[in-house]
Structures are given as C-alpha cells and as structure tokens.
C-alpha cells in the first residue's frame, strides 16, 4: 500500500532579535493523539454563540467559497448589454419587489444588492453623480442601450431613498434583524451624493424619456410613473422632517404615491422580467462571511399590496401632528399601531420621529407642556400645582416657588418613562408586550418616588384629607395617582396583548380574563377616587373665586343669597374642569366595559371547563401553582395592585360553589352589560372619548368589541340551552328507579353535544376578546 504520509516540512526559519523559537510540532502531534475525533478541548469562553458562528469549510451552506461543478465564482452579466424598454420596466418592477422585501425585514444582501445593475452603480463607491453610472468608462457609456438612463435614474432615486429610510430607522428605537436589517455590507447607498442632484437627474430622465421618440407610448408612460414615484418618495421623507409644517402638506407626496401605485400596478404586465440581472453570487463581494443565500422573491401582487398599505399608513401617520390633548395622542398612537397588519418599520420609526425629536414633541411642544396638559386632564385640573405663574416667584421661602421646584423634580423623574409609553407602542407587537412587562416595574418605582413629592406638596399647598360620607379618603396624592393610572393601563395592555399574541392556552382563558377583570375593576375604582378629588378641587376653586369676587357686590337687597358661584370661574377654567371630568368618565366607562366583558368570558370559560369542552391537559409535570407563577411573573414584583395569592386566584376563577346555570346566568348579565357599555362608547363624540384625530380607528375598535360581546352572548345562550337539554337527557336516561331523588349528576358526565372552536387571532371579532364558537353536534 502506498504510504500517504508526507514528510513534515522543515520548520520556518524564524530569527528575530528577542524572539526565542520553540518547535512544538511534536508535542502538538502527540497531544492531539490523546483525543478522539469530536472530543473538545473547550474553555469557558467558547460559548454557544461561538459554536453557532463557526463555519464548516466545504459545506455549501456555510462556506461562501464552495462552488458546485462548473459554477463560476463571480457574476458575469454584462451591464452594457442591450435591453429592450420592456425589460427595463421588468427590472424596475423586480426592484420594487426587492425593495419591499427589505422593508419587510430581509437584508439588503438578499434583496436589492442582488441586482447586477445596483452593484455596478455602487461598486466602486461613486463620489459624484457622474460616477454613479453602470460603467465608468466614457466610451462604453456612449454605447449604452438607449433607455438605460431611465434605469440609472430610477436606481439612484431608489438607493438614495433606502439610505434615507435606513438613517431614519437607525435614529429611532427598533430591533436589528428582528424588525429590520440596516446593514449595508459596506455599500454606502449614495450618502455622498446630494438628494437635489438625484432629483435633478430623475427630472431630466423624465423629460428625456418624453423626448425619446422610439419607445411605445404605453411603456414610456409606465416608466415615467416609476420615475415620478422615486421623486415623490424622497420628497415624502424630506417633508417629514418639517414637523412644524401643516400636516396636510406633509401628506401630499404620500397621496401622490398612493395614486401612482394604482397605475403602476395596472401596467406592470407590460414589463418583461430579466431574471439574469439578479444574482446571489454578488453576495460574495459584500462585507459578510455568509455564503450566498437565496433572493427573497415577493410576487408583484404582494409587493403592490404592501406598498399600497405603506402609502396609506404614510398618509395617516402625519395626522399625529394635529395635536389636541395627550390622551387623544395616546389613542392615536395605540390604535395606529394596533392596525392589522401593523405598519412597516419605516412608518413606525417615522411616527417616533414625529412624536419626539430633539427634545420637541410633535414638532412644536415641550415635554413640560405635554406632561402638564396630561396632569390637568387627569388629576390636576386648574391646579395651583401646575400654574405656570409659580415659575416667576423667586423668593425661595414662598410656597409657590417650592411648588415649582418640586414639580420640576417630578417632570425630570417621569419624562423619559412617559415618552417611553409612546415609543413602546411603536414597536412590533411581541416587543410591545415584552417591553411593557419591564415598563410596569419602572412605573411601580416611579409611583413610589412621586408619592414622596406628593407628600411634600400637600404640606406646601396646605391640603386637608378628604372626608366623605364613606369616611376619610385621605390625601389626593395626585402625582402618585396619575402614575398609578398609567401603570394600571399598561398592566391591562400586557394581558390583552397576551390574548392578541395567542400566548394563553384555552384552559388559561378563564383565569386570564379573571385577572383582566381584576385590573380593570381596580382602574375603575381608582378613577372613582380621582373623580372625588377633582370634584373637591372644583368646589374649592369655585369657593375661592366666589370669595375673591362676591357674586353680588351690592347684596344688601337679596338677603345675602348667592347667585350661582359658577359664574365666577373663567370659561377656560370651567372647560378644564369639564374636560378632566369627561376624561375620568371615559376611562371609567372603558374600564367598566373591560371588566364586565372579562367577567363574562371568565364565567363562560369556567362553565366550558366544567362540561369538559375546555380541558386542562393532565400531565405528571403539570403544576398549577407553578404555572400561575410563570403566568404572573411580570406582576410578581408590583407593589400595587398586588398579585393575588394563588388560592384566591384559583377560587375566583373556578368558582367551585357556583353551579353551571348560575355561572351562565352571571355571564349573560355581564356580557350584556359590556354590550351596553360599548354601545354607549361607540356613540361618544371624539372629544369626549379622547380619540380626536383617531376617531375612525378608535370607533372601529369599539364596534369590534361590541360584535365580540354580541357573539359572546350567543355562545352563552347556546351553552345554556345545550346544558339544560343534556341535563334533561341525563335525568330521563339515568333517573333512579323508585328511589325518589336520583344520584346527583356531575357536570363532567353530561354530554352537551357541542363543538367548540376558539378562533385564532385575526379570525374573531376582536383579538383582545377570545370568544368561543359553539356549534351543536347532531
């Protein structure tokens, strides 16, 4: 047998002053022999991450250099080859699809950077608009196919738009790879080339195209639409930085693009695709170790659908600048982000930049203005605590000076967390839920901190505890009370997003609706408390005003009887009190709907569990106490409201002493109550529902809740009927003989002859209300 052992090469001759060379070849060779293949010598720093990043040479899915038989390493497509006008159109539409795939979260390497034309524009890196051409050789340039200038202008506009989008995204909160890939693999996306010169080139291309006689009119028009789209796209992004402008003017390019897209879709069929103009091989030239991965191919219909939504969302998003008050703003953001499908990352980051940039909210307001507006709307209407006049008092011993100072400490403490609520809503839905779980910990601490400020201020403002017929209620603690309101809402959102994201299994629904009910009820009670204090503030303000300007100056002839004291509060003050009153009413109505509906569904699912339609999985590993612990983990450390003890939770959910008919009677009442509540909400005008600027989306959501409540009512009565029938059947069939009272029939023995389906998210009326569909079985 041939000996394959090659004699070892001589060791390299290293001679360098100060370096002592030791030949370890033999030691290494013998050490290696003590290991069997696959045995690892692993130090603690070699983590799972390292092992996942390791590459296997010669595995085509890991080694970017592996070529299959006869495959060439590099792409050989010639960008100066002849192209028909319809092929240029085809390439542009293919680029549109790839651009959209990038917006959807796929990397540039698998989308736009697979275009041979894009690659030739970007590599080597162009430093001027003239260099940004498919070939840099002027002689070849001369001989370029006639309409290639259209493709060039289109590509430059597209790449610059991608650059602008990328910058926008990077400046805001988003999650790399999860939401979006900003990596450009060392391609600069034309950041050196000014937008104006690219727009100029696009405009010139449009006029040259019109002048070119030898192109069919249809194709020429189709190409022109696409060039126009590129101009509008850059313009839309450019305008959005003018946050102080009239929102309706920011909308114009978006409206234009929506219109263009309709036409583009119609003449897409004129194009002829050129698949060879795209290649995964180009990925080998990018700054990445990844072997080439497939091109992400959207169909043109999908691409069109996404663009249409993108432009529609772009039109809507600018309305956020039409500020009326903070609660409507929050409604705007939360309903906008709850749209299905959720707006793309581009729009979500655009919204963030409109909301808050360079310490300015919505382009025009200070954080303080928004915060104080929020306080006046919720817990401090017309309060001396937020009176801007306090700022002018310079005497340190003056309580007003101290109030101003304490309020500034308050604002510093809460500003970031407050703005975060808006930012959190701009994330993907999974992140919204996860981030809220962290945010409530912060708000829990924040509540405790600002309560200390409340304590100082109540001395400063000489506040007295409130006494009502219910006894002593205590101090108003407005700042803590405000923080608590936000914390409660976030806790409800966490649970509701759990339903939306299908985090809960069917056998958890009863418990989670019970918990939601508990939170909403707590919010309603809290609203009630705020209401009492606000009413007292109103009384006190009226008395003060009355005192300053006695109602009837020469009152000798009316026996000292006061006329309505209200007349002495200014109209603006009256309005401020009325607004906060309607806000509290709105939040209490919303909380009441949530609590009733949640209560009803809890009872319904508990009843379904009794008759065996929702079965807990039985496994030796299942432990309900530990499951409760996982489920309520985000709430475990929250001081207020405290997580209920497991026993209390289990008892409240299972309701062992309540029979199925009672549970269902109760569910019917609660669901009907929710229905009435939603009907009332749906009729509330936007200013009183605090959805100014977002009324259509908001009322759409309320109507969906209403439909869900109606469906829940149907499910309850279906089960009621089926249960009675099953009971009758069992009594007839299994009735004891002559022994009078038969043995008690257990619910689990009954066959209600129903099929239950739980609609997945997106298939029911509202994702926060999981209503089972019950259909009778033959």
């Amino acid at each position: 047998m041939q000996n394959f052992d090659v004699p070892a090469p001589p060791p390299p001759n290293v001679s360098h002053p100060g370096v002592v060379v030791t030949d370890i070849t033999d030691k290494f060779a013998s050490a290696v022999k003590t290991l069997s293949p696959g045995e690892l010598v692993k130090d603690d720093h070699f983590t799972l991450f390292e092992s996942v990043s390791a590459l296997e040479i010669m595995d085509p899915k890991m080694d970017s250099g592996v070529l299959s038989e006869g495959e060439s390493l590099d792409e050989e497509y010639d960008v100066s080859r002849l192209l028909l006008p319809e092929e240029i159109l085809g390439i542009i539409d293919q680029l549109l699809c790839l651009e959209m795939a990038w917006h959807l979260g796929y990397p540039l390497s698998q989308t736009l950077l697979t275009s041979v034309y894009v690659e030739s524009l970007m590599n080597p890196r162009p430093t001027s608009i003239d260099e940004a051409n498919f070939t840099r050789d002027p002689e070849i340039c001369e001989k370029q196919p006639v309409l290639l200038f259209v493709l060039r202008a289109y590509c430059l506009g597209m790449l610059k738009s991608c650059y602008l989008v990328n910058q926008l995204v990077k400046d805001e909160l988003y999650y790399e790879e999860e939401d979006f890939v900003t990596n450009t693999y060392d391609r600069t996306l034309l950041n050196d080339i000014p937008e104006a010169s690219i727009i100029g080139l696009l405009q010139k291309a449009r006029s040259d195209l019109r002048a070119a006689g030898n192109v069919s009119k249809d194709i020429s028009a189709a190409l022109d639409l696409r060039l126009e789209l590129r101009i509008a796209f850059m313009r839309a992004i450019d305008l959005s930085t003018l946050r102080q402008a009239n929102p309706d003017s920011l909308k114009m390019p978006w409206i234009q693009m929506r219109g263009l897209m309709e036409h583009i879709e119609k003449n897409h069929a004129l194009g002829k695709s050129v698949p060879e103009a795209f290649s995964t091989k180009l990925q080998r030239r990018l700054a990445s170790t990844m072997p080439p991965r497939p091109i992400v191919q959207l169909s043109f219909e999908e691409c069109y659908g996404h663009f249409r939504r993108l432009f529609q969302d772009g039109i809507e998003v600018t309305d956020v600048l039409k500020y009326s008050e903070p609660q409507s703003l929050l409604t705007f953001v939360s309903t906008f982000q709850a749209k299905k499908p959720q707006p793309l990352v581009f729009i979500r980051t655009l919204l963030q930049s409109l909301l808050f940039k360079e310490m300015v909210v919505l382009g025009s307001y200070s954080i303080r203005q928004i915060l104080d507006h929020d306080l006046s709307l919720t817990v401090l209407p017309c309060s001396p605590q937020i009176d801007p006049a306090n700022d002018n008092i310079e005497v340190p011993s003056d309580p007003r000076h101290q109030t101003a100072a304490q309020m500034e400490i308050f604002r510093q403490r809460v500003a970031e967390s407050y703005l975060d609520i808006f930012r959190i809503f701009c994330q993907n839905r999974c992140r919204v839920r996860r981030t809220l779980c962290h945010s409530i910990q912060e708000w829990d601490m924040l509540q405790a901190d600002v309560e200390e400020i409340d304590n100082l201020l109540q001395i400063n403002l000489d506040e007295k505890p409130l006494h009502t017929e219910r006894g002593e209620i205590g101090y108003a603690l407005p700042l803590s009370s405000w923080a608590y309101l936000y914390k409660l809402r976030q806790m409800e959102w966490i649970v509701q997003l759990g339903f939306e994201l299908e985090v809960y299994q069917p056998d958890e629904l009863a418990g989670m609706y019970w918990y939601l009910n508990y939170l909403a009820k707590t919010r309603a009670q809290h609203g009630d408390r705020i209401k009492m204090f606000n009413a007292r503030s109103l009384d006190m303000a009226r008395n003060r005003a009355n005192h300053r300007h006695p109602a009837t100056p020469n009152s000798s002839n009316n026996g000292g009887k006061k006329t309505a004291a209200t007349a002495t509060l200014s109209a603006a003050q009256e309005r401020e009190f009325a607004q906060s009153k309607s806000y509290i009413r709105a939040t209490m109505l919303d909380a009441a709907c949530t609590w009733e509906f949640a209560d009803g569904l809890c009872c319904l699912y508990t009843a379904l569990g009794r008759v065996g339609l929702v079965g807990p999985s039985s496994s030796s590993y299942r432990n309900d106490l530990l499951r409760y612990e996982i489920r309520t983990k985000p709430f475990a450390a929250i001081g207020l409201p405290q997580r209920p003890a497991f026993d209390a939770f289990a008892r409240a959910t299972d309701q062992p002493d309540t029979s199925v008919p009672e549970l269902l009677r109760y569910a019917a009442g609660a669901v009907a109550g929710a229905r009435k509540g939603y009907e009332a909400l749906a009729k509330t005008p936007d200013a009183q529902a605090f959805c100014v600027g977002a009324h259509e989306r908001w009322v759409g959501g309320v109507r969906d809740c209403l439909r869900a409540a109606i469906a829940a009512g149907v499910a309850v009565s279906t089960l009621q009927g089926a249960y009675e029938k099953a009971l009758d059947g069992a009594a007839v069939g299994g009735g004891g003989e002559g022994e009078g009272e038969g043995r008690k029939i257990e619910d689990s023995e009954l066959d209600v002859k129903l099929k239950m389906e739980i609609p997945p998210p997106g298939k029911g009326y509202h994702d926060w209300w999981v209503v089972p569909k019950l259909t009778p079985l033959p």
Partner: protein
Amino acid sequence: MEAARATQLPGELRYIQYEHALEETYLPAIRALISKDLSEPYSIYVYRYFLYQWAHLCYMALNPADNSLIGVIICKLEHHASHSPPTYRGYIAMLAVSSAYRGHGIATALVKMAIDAMAERNADEIVLETEETNLPAMRLYERLGFLRSKKLHRYYLNGNSAYRLVLLLKSSAGSDVNRQPT
C-alpha cells in the same frame, strides 16, 4: 418529501442515553435527522457544543431491528443569570423524530426522559423556543405542562416568529405566590 408513514412501530424501541463513544456511530445520523427540518444547518460545533458538555441530557430512540436512529433530543443545563434571581435553567435545544415514525409518542418519551434527567439534577425550569407554525411541537410540549411565556417576533431566519415555552419545576426563589395581600 414526506416519507411513507409506518403504521406500526418495529417492536419495542430502544431508548439510550448518548455518550461520547457513540459519536462516530450516531452523530452523522443525528445531524441528518435534525437538519431535515431546519432551513439553516448547524455546524458540527453546535452539536459537539451540546453533546460534549451534556451527553447525559441527550437521548436517542433506536430501531430495535438494526439500531438505526429514529428520534433524538439534545439539551443543556446551566446557570442562567441574565435576570434576577438567577436560575438553574434547562434548555431543550433540538428534538426530532424521523417522519415515518411520528405520532407514536416517541418524542413525548424523549422529552420526558430529558425532563426527568434535568429535574434529577436540580433544574429550576426548562425552556425552549419553537416556531409559531410548528403545531405538533407546541401541542406536545403543552400537553406535558409547558406554558408559552412570550412571543418572539421574526425569531428565525426564515422570518417566522417563535414562542418561548417554559416548564417551571420549582418555585423561584423569593417568589411567594401564596402570600396574602396585606
């Protein structure tokens, strides 16, 4: 490609724990079985990373006729300190059953063996991620008592989201779910 489904198992399967001496015999089959359902392959180091350190948490189901591999589960067990309080966390990294033998409880048996082994080593909890579209896997784990703790947006390279599933084995330190509200 869906292989023909075996209506019956080839007799009583052999369940064995992996050990390093079996690498040559079984690692290629393990890789082949697991890569079948993966869009991106794992390098051999990923397998060795787990198998070398936690061979005792890897179980295989073998065909009694020829000892060929039918199913496998691969796990790890480590202290997890990125959030407080730190936990001793088991992680199910990979699980697969050859498609011809699915639906006979093989994966269930493998998962149970892994849970038992980790519980015996004092694990506090066991976690894993699974693709939101992988209903068979989700049903299997949830039947055993796992809960979805969160959803992870576009967790996989193919753009699919995932659920994190958790089975708590012990009450976490400091958590007193039964404290009475004061």
